[in-house]
């Protein structure tokens, strides 16, 4: 009779040994080559797990085989045919056994597989025992008297498998004496119950000849209390495990919670059906009972084998939310029906109509609030992360934060400091600093049908991908704004570069084209001059002087387009400018880094325009130019001693445009009578 108990204590010994030798267990078997899914268990030995599962299979198969044999052969005798009639009930725990085998095959060192199989095996055994006593077949069995006498107390066998499952799911027995005591205590409780109920008999749903007083009643009370304590301990163990566990463990436990929520939902649905349509209670509870036998093993198997199969957080949160909504709606419906029929004291159909109306009115807002509350409770990680990203998106819309912060926000929300955001730019991808990447991996984010970004994360699980996809959808608008802003800046920079290159080309064309030809023409004239008389020779001199003037003009023009002294650097170019400036000009140039063509030309043109302005409008007699490197930016400052009072908004518009077009800033200070200072940061 205690064979299963023996096998189970073997299982517990195995777990206990591992737990003792490895405190803080939960990291062991991950490197085992046979482990398909990354999964941490304080494992049992694979052979032991297989043996235990085989035991459970046998415990399930014997009554099924017997019933099947009886059903096929159609043996006479009332008891036997009655036994055959229980075949469907005996078959159902097979779901647990199959699920147990699945787990054992995929994760051979997990204690969950054997525990799950025994959940089915124990139910099967208990059921067989029940059927045995119910049909009176025990009369034919050897030792029939003692079996019959003990049977009423052995109903605890039904829950033993589930108890063990709760204690070891998902990664073995918890560390500590208390948890190792649970099953022995359960065994003692069973013994007490057997003694207390010795010789009683089940008749239908009731026990006959049970103890009502005396020491056996006390034993019965103690036994029941111990059974209840064991069940509570198992649930507490699971709760403690959930609270102290890592993310994967929580995910696994959530699968079990999902099954629990599903069962409650089925119960609620059955209840509503039973009340609303007045069906039998059997029909109401049927789906829930089948749910228990099928949902729990399925959820446990998925939790161990493929814990990230679906978005269990969301499934759990949504099913819980719908369950609460349905139950609350049903309560509202019932209350309204009751209330209306009380007031009108007759059944007029008004009660049902009013109830339907009120329920429909309540349903959606109720569900919205319940979903939020449940998501906050059950799916806390996603809820908080999504809320963070959504708050950021709202801040961006309101202009309170810059969209470029999105990468930092996503890193924070996804709890991954290595997360990278790549924005679609032309055929490739760029990060926020503008570096290009040909084809990065990651979650692709689309906006209005176009792929606008890829988000790469160091977290590589399917669950992390789903989470990231959710977060990125919430971040779509800030990301797109980022991308457009970056594209705009890049486009403007390209335009500036093209303009600068064009100026350079134009300057070269003037020098090497027109100027060159004019001088060549001058040389021809000079050669002709040799054979001419004095008067005509003077004419040629005038013509050559004209050409020289034109060449000088062209040189000045080319200089205005782009001073060729810039080829020698900013300082020689500014010194040449000082030579050409009619008022004294102080030049103070600090040590500068290497400047690119755009910076060079921009800085030079800022000085030119500011100095020209001082000469034209400020009646200045002295001008100072300072160029310095300030924290990696080029600072150009031009100040004069003129009349000041420059119209700050309209003054130097061209200069302002020029500087701002290359991403710089201009500050102009021009107090009346106090001179004008123009400062440009490039």
């Amino acid at each position, binding site marked *: 009779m205690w064979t299963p108990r023996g096998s189970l204590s073997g299982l517990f010994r195995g777990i206990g040994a591992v737990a003792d030798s490895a405190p803080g267990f939960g990291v062991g078997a991950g490197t085992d080559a046979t482990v398909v899914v990354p999964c941490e268990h304080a494992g049992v030995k694979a052979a032991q797990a297989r043996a235990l599962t085989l035991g459970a299979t046998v415990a399930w198969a014997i009554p099924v085989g017997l019933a099947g044999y009886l059903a096929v052969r159609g043996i006479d005798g009332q008891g036997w045919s009655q036994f055959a009639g229980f075949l469907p009930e005996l078959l159902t725990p097979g779901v647990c056994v199959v699920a147990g085998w699945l787990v054992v095959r995929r994760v051979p060192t997990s204690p969950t597989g054997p525990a799950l199989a025994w959940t089915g095996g124990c139910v099967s055994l208990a059921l067989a025992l029940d059927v045995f006593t119910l049909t009176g077949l025990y009369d034919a069995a050897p030792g029939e008297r003692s079996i019959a006498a003990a049977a009423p107390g052995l109903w605890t066998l039904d829950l033993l498998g589930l108890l063990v499952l709760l204690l070891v799911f998902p990664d073995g027995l918890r560390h500590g004496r208390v948890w190792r005591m649970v099953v022995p205590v359960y065994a003692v409780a069973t013994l007490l119950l057997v003694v207390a109920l010795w010789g009683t008999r089940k008749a239908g749903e009731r026990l006959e000849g049970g103890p009502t007083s005396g020491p056996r009643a006390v034993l019965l009370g103690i036994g029941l209390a111990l059974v209840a304590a064991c069940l509570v301990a198992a649930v507490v163990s699971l709760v403690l495990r959930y609270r102290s566990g890592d993310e994967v463990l929580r995910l696994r436990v959530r699968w079990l919670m999902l099954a629990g929520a599903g069962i409650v939902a089925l119960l609620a649905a059955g209840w509503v059906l039973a009340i609303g349509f007045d069906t039998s209670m059997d029909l109401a509870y049927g789906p829930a009972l089948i749910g228990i036998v099928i949902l729990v093993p399925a959820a446990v198997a998925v939790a161990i084998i493929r814990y990230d199969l679906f978005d269990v957080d969301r499934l759990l949160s949504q099913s819980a939310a719908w369950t609460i909504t349905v139950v609350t709606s049903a309560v509202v419906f019932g209350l309204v029906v009751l209330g209306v029929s009380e007031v009108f004291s007759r059944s007029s159909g008004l009660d049902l109509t009013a109830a339907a109306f009120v329920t429909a009115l309540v349903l959606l807002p109720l569900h919205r609030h319940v979903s939020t509350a449940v998501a906050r409770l059950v799916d806390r990680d996603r809820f908080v992360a999504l809320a963070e990203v959504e708050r950021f998106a709202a801040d961006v819309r309101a202009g309170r934060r810059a969209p470029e912060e999105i990468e930092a926000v996503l890193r924070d929300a996804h709890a991954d400091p290595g997360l990278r955001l790549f924005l679609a730019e032309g055929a490739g991808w760029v990060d926020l600093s503008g570096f290009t990447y040909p084809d990065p991996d990651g979650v692709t984010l689309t906006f209005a049908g176009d792929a606008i970004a890829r988000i790469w994360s160091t977290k590589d699980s399917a669950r992390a991908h789903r989470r990231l996809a959710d977060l990125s959808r919430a971040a779509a608008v800030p990301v797109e704004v980022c991308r457009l802003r970056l594209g705009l800046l890049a486009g403007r920079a390209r335009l500036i570069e093209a303009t600068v290159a064009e100026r350079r080309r134009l300057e070269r064309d003037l020098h*090497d084209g027109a*100027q*060159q030809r004019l001088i060549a023409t*001058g*040389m021809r004239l000079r050669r002709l001059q040799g054979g001419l008389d004095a008067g005509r020779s003077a004419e040629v001199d005038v013509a050559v002087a004209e050409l020289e003037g034109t*060449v000088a003009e062209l040189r000045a023009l080319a200089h205005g387009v782009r001073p*060729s002294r810039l080829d*020698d650097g900013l300082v*020689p170019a500014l010194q040449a400018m000082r*030579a050409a400036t009619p008022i004294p000009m102080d030049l103070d140039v600090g040590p500068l880094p290497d400047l690119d063509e755009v910076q060079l030309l921009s800085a030079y043109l800022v000085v030119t325009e500011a100095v020209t302005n001082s000469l034209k409008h400020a009646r200045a007699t002295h001008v100072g130019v300072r160029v310095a490197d300030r924290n990696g930016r080029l600072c150009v400052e031009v100040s004069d001693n003129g009349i000041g009072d420059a119209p700050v908004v309209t003054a130097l518009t061209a200069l302002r445009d020029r500087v701002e077009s290359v991403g710089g800033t201009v500050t102009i200070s021009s107090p009346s009578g106090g001179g004008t200072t123009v400062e440009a940061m490039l």
Partner: protein
Amino acid sequence: MRLVVGEDSMLFREGLVRLLADAGHEVVAAVGDAAAMEERVANLRPDLVIADIRMPPELESDGARAAARIRDTSPEVGILLLSQHIELRDCMDMVGTPGFGYLLKDRVLHLAEFDDALRRVADGGSAIDPEIIRSLVTARQSSALEVLSPREIEVLALVAEGHSNASIARRLFLSERTVMAHMRSVFTKLGLVEDGATHRRVLAVVTFLGAQPDTPPARAPMDPPGCARSSGRMGVPGP
């Protein structure tokens, strides 16, 4: 005089070759790129090479860089660089050294002066375009040169261009003796060592002008600084 011409514009090159021939020079080679120019100079050993600063292959200052290499391999060959505009990046080291000239291209239209410059350079003298000297002088004006009178600055500029005392006297309508007096004064005020040889004084002046204002060249302590200052104050105010 035997000349090699390096100039990529065919129009300008042909014009220049004819002008030089008319002036009685022998143009032994006229080429359109820097590498060919270097090769001809090495083979033909001319008295002088006239090179455009901007030439193929890169159309940057290839001519100037080729000239610097010629200076290393064949120091006896005079070098005259021609340019459309002032661009000293790759030739500042050579400016003021003997047998080097740098002129804007339109100077060729003044035949006599151009010929004079050619001969000066071929003879180991110097010919620096007045534009360049003006930019050097104005670049230093507000600091070191404020001790000089305007006349002294004029003389200094002509010295820097590579003119001899006689040439300076002719241009400024002065006697050679006055020019020499001005020069002595200039050298004393700037703390430069006077030297009889024309080419060395050109280099001294150009080096002085070309140095960065903040790092004046080491001065020979010929004159107490106070003296130079006082004469600066007493002199004509700077422009």
